[in-house]
């Protein structure tokens, strides 16, 4: 499988702050990749770099192009929803459709109108009159009506209530994703997208701290709830993280044989949220 994104040694500074500190990663065509990281980890800078909106150092190829040189050409193949990116408030819904139809060669107005027909968004309303959830629905409808290779979503459901968030991801997966395109999503709400993802990237302090396929996680990571009498044995196996739960301790191990771990307690694959905390706290502990 070829890679749609190849990034090597990406660096970006804002004054003294290193937003990206030698970022290396690649994203395979057809995958749904979650870019997970705490605030200030470099998620938004990374995603902006992918769509040519941030000037970063290093080697970067997206859909075969350098986004820093030919953003407008790249955007024929890539769609982007920014975390704070809002549709222009003065546009009416049908005007924004007119605009995208005129400037984007891969936009299907019919498809956008079909999607909008399933929502409560009136065609003649100004965007400033829509709720935040409706604006996100509209933006998603626009993006879903564009036939691109790569969809980049930066915290697309930020500030939305649970119903809109759920609808957003359901729609993305059921009505949009067909296995041909690639989706990169960054979000704080890891639990909500966990089941969507095929690949996982954890980012912290401008570096990738985890790069794995979701299906490989169970072979690499294990979480075991261990009684107090086995703490010493567990520590000897080099856990990456532990937390106390109701008088027991949940340990997370990396690349430790599960048959060995089952001697200490019930072993399972950690959730992405637990793994995220483990990797970040573990990295900070080092």
């Amino acid at each position: 499988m070829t890679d749609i994104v190849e990034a090597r040694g990406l660096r970006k500074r804002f004054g003294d702050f290193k937003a990206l500190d030698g970022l290396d990663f690649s994203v395979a065509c057809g995958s749904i990749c979650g870019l997970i990281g705490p605030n200030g980890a470099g998620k938004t800078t990374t995603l902006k770099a992918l769509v040519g909106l941030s000037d970063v150092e290093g080697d970067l190829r997206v859909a075969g192009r350098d986004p820093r040189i030919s953003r407008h050409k790249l955007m024929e193949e890539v769609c982007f929803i920014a975390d704070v990116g809002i549709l222009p408030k003065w546009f009416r819904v049908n005007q924004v459709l007119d605009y995208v139809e005129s400037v984007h060669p891969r936009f299907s107005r019919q498809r956008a109108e079909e999607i909008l027909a399933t929502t409560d968004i009136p065609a003649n309303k100004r965007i400033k009159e829509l709720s935040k959830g409706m604006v996100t629905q509209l933006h998603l409808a626009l993006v879903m009506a564009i036939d691109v290779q790569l969809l980049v979503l930066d915290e697309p459901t930020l500030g939305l209530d649970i119903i809109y968030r759920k609808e957003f991801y359901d729609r993305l997966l059921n009505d949009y994703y067909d296995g041909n395109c690639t989706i990169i999503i960054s979000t704080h709400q890891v639990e909500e997208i966990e089941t969507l993802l095929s690949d996982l990237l954890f980012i912290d302090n401008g570096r990738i701290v985890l790069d794995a396929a979701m299906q490989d996680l169970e072979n690499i990571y294990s979480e075991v709830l261990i009684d107090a009498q086995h703490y010493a044995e567990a520590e000897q196996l080099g856990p990456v993280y532990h937390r106390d739960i109701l008088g027991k301790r949940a340990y997370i191990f990396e690349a430790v044989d599960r048959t060995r771990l089952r001697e200490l307690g019930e072993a399972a694959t950690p959730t992405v949220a637990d793994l995220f905390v483990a990797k970040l706290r573990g990295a900070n502990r080092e």
Partner: protein
Amino acid sequence: MNSLLPAQFVALLRREVLENRALFIAAPAVLALVLSVFALWAISMAPGEQLAAGVEYLSIMFDGLSPGEMAPMFLMPAIPFIMMLYACVLIYLLNALYQDRKDLSVYFWQSMPVSNLGTVLSKVVTVIAVVPAFYVAILFVVYLLAVTALSLLGLSYDVEVAGLGYMFMAAIFSLFLFYVSAFLAALWLLPTIGWLLLFSAFAKRTPVLWALGVFILLGLVEDLIFGTQFLGNWVESRSNFRQYIVLDFPMAMDRLFSYDMLFGLVVGAILITGAVYMRRFVD
């Protein structure tokens, strides 16, 4: 797809008009309304003999003139509109590459396959060719009312002002002069357009302060280092209001084909290129 393809470029121009309809349409429309109401009020309040004398004066002034010769006189009432055009365009240019960064809609605009060159050129063409067209349309309505009112006044005082058809043709010709004047003035002021767009694309806040501040600073530096005032003198030489008005075709040709114009166009093009360069990234 090339962003200079006609359909896409028209969409970019349409975006400018929709976004700035208050500046481009509402402002001159309100001015037209206010001036028309004021004129009607003045006519209704003026004593009959004064009105009669005024109409008589106009009929003498227009006597024997062709519509083409009358047209420059018809530009007089357009002066407030010309001033408003410059004020609105100044506000527009300062915000053109700044406002979308301020309200963050730049992420939407930049997520479309539109080049920065196309975006910046759409702003330039809006100023040079599109905004004056709206003013012409609004002035057309104003002139239509004025010509009708003048003819009616003439009828009521039994004075033939200049003939309705003649005056109407003169009004149309003066609107043509208005458009050509605005078009040529915009080309003449291309360095100013480029300068404002450059700082609109550069400034993180208050582009007006950057545009003015850097200009003053450059002037001071030139004065301190070389003891000359070339920059200030050059700008002053291009800011005479009379340079912005074209009264006939030969004047338009003289204005268009001159080394001064060419030099200004080159400086303007360099500054506009700078604005395109500044527009590359959003961080």
